[in-house]
């Protein structure tokens, strides 16, 4: 499985180069690999359906106990087949659809990246690997949605998708890590058996909320539903893939994967059912508001995601079965219909249902595939969609006290779905000639093959459900339920409650379709769209804007370009944080084991303090220098008194040099002026005093603990025996820490070089002190050349 996943990523990397060679055949060539991977996974149906999940473990980061492990049970297999199977058809389709685009190769690269990420996601066992693939799908979809990036609307749609799903991904990461804390394992396959532990754990609610955030954002559940209809800004092959088999199904997959671990509680039941049902009904009806084929399809995808969330929330065997059936049903018809919409758009130049019509003779193959898929979407017999709807109603009826809510919501949503399906499947092909400028032809074979195959499968699975029920669907259901579950699917169950519900659905749905021209522009639909469709999207954009404004405001406040304000901020933070922690935690003691104070030492200390205070107070630059040097010499004397003659000598030398340089420079500078208000001086003084007090407090605290002289004694004892030096300080500098000292010399040399360059510029500038910056730059360049 590692190779199956990796090979797709490798192909993604080389796809642009292949595309350069294969030109218009690229789709067919690149489709071979996903087809091979599909075949590989198809071979696993037998073993997996027998109830033995396959697990493969590869070492990844052994030092962190991370493994790159894959787990293939019925659920992963169902998704893996969809990802690679539909992926193959999409790649072929894209070969025709994107033909002639100047970034043909790049498109395939991104599409394959998307495929690899989604495949990795569904077969990953390790939660970290899962998370990486999860975020990679967000990233890849960001690139693909914004593929036509010259248009700002597309960039905006891409950003919306990235921020919503990426943000949810971060919540998911936190949830998964908490799950790891509770279960002690990073592998899904091991977590599955630990559901009771997790549900009883105090972290359960937190884990649940975080994981649900990840799933709801990814699968566009209300109130995060707005990003998905916007995502149709991407090229149509992307929409087809994103809606049918990848990305949006990742959230549903996550819910299904973790339902043995997190499911079965009231929290799970009510949250998923209420959000799922609401999303389902809302978006099914919102779909009727639109006339753009892709927009209608996008809202019906949100509807199906709501349905799946609701069914997984119900969590009974029948509900899980219905969810698995519907995943397959939806993937088949939605992939086909998006591709059909793309072909129609490609040939006519429009996707607006009101402008389309009468294409049945020009585009017979496209029509056949599209119509068949639309009938499956409508849930009409004998297509697979009918079975999907029946098992949903069956699940609703067996859902206990909430069953009636689930049933009513499902009927309402499915009726609108039926109407939408007929609008999408019939309007473009029948009726009078549409109003489009281009003369339509049948799409090339690469573009009707995919929808044709998917639509035919929708018919075949409806007529012969045994093709899938006993094998893959049963295995998937069993994997979610964590116990084997046998079922048969059939078109005809006799006259029972689900059938009656279906008939009601048909009645409402057909009525809606007939009245669609009146329903679509009605005031009610406009209000619904305004409140639930446009408003959340606008609120999101507004939120982004306000966040940018907030950060702009913060930036201006915190980084106003004035160094002393930065310093003030840093120091105040230091005072508040360190000061409060000192006050709260430390038991400050006066150090006991210290030397006494002799009067001349006290006098030196007094001189140092006095000199510093004079330097602070004075406005006379030469008095400041004088005070500085007196303080410096006093410190040198202290060094001398306390056994540090080397320091004293250095300090004397440096102090003398400093004075000379200071005097030279200051002679050329004006006096100290430019005062600020008393208030800010007081404020600065308070903060500075606070810092000083904290440093003294820390120092006193350190002094009241015993000193560990291990390193000093070690160096002292080796100073002569190993380095043959009597002066320990010197030995440390030039022997033990010689490399360090060399670095210091380097620093000094660089400073000296800098000073040299600056001085040269000054000499040349002396005649024109107000020279412009430009001419200075010239001088600088010359100086560098000279140097």
């Amino acid at each position, binding site marked *: 499985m590692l190779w199956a996943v990796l090979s797709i990523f490798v192909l993604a990397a080389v796809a642009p180069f292949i595309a350069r060679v294969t030109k218009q055949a690229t789709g067919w060539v690149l489709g071979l690999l996903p087809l091979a991977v599909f075949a590989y996974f198809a071979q696993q149906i037998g073993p997996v359906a027998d109830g033995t999940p396959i697990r493969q473990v590869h070492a990844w980061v052994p030092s962190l106990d991370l493994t790159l492990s894959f787990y293939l049970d019925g659920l992963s297999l169902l998704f893996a087949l969809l990802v690679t199977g539909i992926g193959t058809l999409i790649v072929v389709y894209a070969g025709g659809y994107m033909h002639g685009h100047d970034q043909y190769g790049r498109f395939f690269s991104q599409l394959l990246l998307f495929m690899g990420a989604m495949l990795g996601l569904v077969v990953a066992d390790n939660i970290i690997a899962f998370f990486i693939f999860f975020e990679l799908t967000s990233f890849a979809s960001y690139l693909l949605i914004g593929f036509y990036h010259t248009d700002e609307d597309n960039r905006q749609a891409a950003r919306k998708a990235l921020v919503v799903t990426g943000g949810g991904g971060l919540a998911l990461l936190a949830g998964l890590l908490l799950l790891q804390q509770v279960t002690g394992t990073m592998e899904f396959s091991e977590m599955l058996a630990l559901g009771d532990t997790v549900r009883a754990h105090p972290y359960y609610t937190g884990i649940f909320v975080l994981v649900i955030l990840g799933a709801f954002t990814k699968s566009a559940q209300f109130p995060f539903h707005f990003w998905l209809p916007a995502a149709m800004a991407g090229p149509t092959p992307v929409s087809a893939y994103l809606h049918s088999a990848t990305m949006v199904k990742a959230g549903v997959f996550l819910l299904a994967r973790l339902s043995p671990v997190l499911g079965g509680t009231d929290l799970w039941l009510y949250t998923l059912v209420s959000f799922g049902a609401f999303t389902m009904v809302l978006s099914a009806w919102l779909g009727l508001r639109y006339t753009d084929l892709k927009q209608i399809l996008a809202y019906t995808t949100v509807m199906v995601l709501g349905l799946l969330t609701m069914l997984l929330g119900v969590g009974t065997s029948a509900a899980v079965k219905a969810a698995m059936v519907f995943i397959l049903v939806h993937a088949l018809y939605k992939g086909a219909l998006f591709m059909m919409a793309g072909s129609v758009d490609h040939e006519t130049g429009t996707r607006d249902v009101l402008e389309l019509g009468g294409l049945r003779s020009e585009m017979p193959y496209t029509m056949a595939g599209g119509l068949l898929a639309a009938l499956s979407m409508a849930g009409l017999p004998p297509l697979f969609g009918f079975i999907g709807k029946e098992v949903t109603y069956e699940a609703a009826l067996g859902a206990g006290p909430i069953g009636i809510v689930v049933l009513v919501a499902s009927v309402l949503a499915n009726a609108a779905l039926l109407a939408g399906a007929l609008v999408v499947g019939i309007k473009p092909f029948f009726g009078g000639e549409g109003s489009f400028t281009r003369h339509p032809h049948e799409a090339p074979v690469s573009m009707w093959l995919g929808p044709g195959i998917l639509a035919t499968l929708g018919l075949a699975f409806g007529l012969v459900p045994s093709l899938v029920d006993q094998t893959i669907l049963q295995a998937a259901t069993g994997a979610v339920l964590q116990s084997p579950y046998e079922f048969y699917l059939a078109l005809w169950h006799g006259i029972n409650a689900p059938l009656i519900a279906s008939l009601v659905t048909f009645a409402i749905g057909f009525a809606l379709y007939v009245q669609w021209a009146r329903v679509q522009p009605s005031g009610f639909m406009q209000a619904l769209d305004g409140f639930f469709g446009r408003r959340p999207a606008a609120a999101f954009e507004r939120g982004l804007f306000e966040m940018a404004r907030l950060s702009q405001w913060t930036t201006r406040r915190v980084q106003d*370009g004035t160094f002393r304000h930065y310093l003030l901020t840093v120091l105040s933070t230091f005072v508040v944080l360190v000061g409060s922690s000192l006050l709260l935690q430390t038991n400050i003691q006066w150090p006991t084991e210290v030397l006494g104070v002799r009067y001349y030492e006290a006098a030196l200390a007094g001189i140092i303090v006095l000199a510093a205070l004079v330097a602070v107070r004075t406005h006379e630059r030469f008095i400041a220098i004088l005070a500085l040097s007196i303080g410096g010499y006093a410190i040198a004397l202290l060094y001398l008194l306390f056994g*540090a003659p080397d320091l004293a000598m250095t300090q004397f030398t440096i102090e003398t040099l*400093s004075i000379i340089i200071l005097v030279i420079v200051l002679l050329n500078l004006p006096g100290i002026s430019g005062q600020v208000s008393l208030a800010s001086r007081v404020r600065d003084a308070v903060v500075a005093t606070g810092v000083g007090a904290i440093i003294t407090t820390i120092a006193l605290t350190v002094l009241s603990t015993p000193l560990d002289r291990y390193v000093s004694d070690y160096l002292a004892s080796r100073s002569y025996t190993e380095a043959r*030096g009597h002066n320990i300080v010197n030995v440390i500098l030039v022997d033990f820490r010689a490399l360090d000292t060399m670095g210091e010399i380097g620093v000094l040399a660089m400073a000296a070089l800098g000073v040299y360059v600056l001085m040269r510029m000054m000499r040349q500038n002396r005649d024109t002190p107000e020279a412009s910056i430009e001419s200075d730059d010239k001088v600088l360049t010359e100086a560098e050349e000279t140097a």
Partner: protein
Amino acid sequence: MEALLAIVSGILFACSFYLMMRRNLLRFVIGLIILGNAANLLIFTMGRLTRDHPPVIPYGAELPIEPYANPLPQALILTAIVISFGLLVFALVLVFRNYLTTNTLDADTLDAAEPDEPLDVHTETRRLPA
């Protein structure tokens, strides 16, 4: 004595930070010098004080005679003194150079490199450009 020097270095830190928060660049440089001294004094004190006994091994001996001053802080401070001298000179020349160009020592007027608008936000449409 250690406690006294801890207080002294605290005062030096306070003075240096106060000076570094002034508008005049010269006072900033003075603050920088005091900061170096304050830090050195603090390190010196933290290594504990020993009167009159430098860390030197007498001729003929292999080990220093107890008690001897802690050599480690001294080694650190020795380089620190030299480095802070390098810093001082460089800062001073920079200030001077800047004065020749701008004719001012007022830090608040040196904002040529600051952008007026840190972010490009469409205030009229109230949305962030993509």
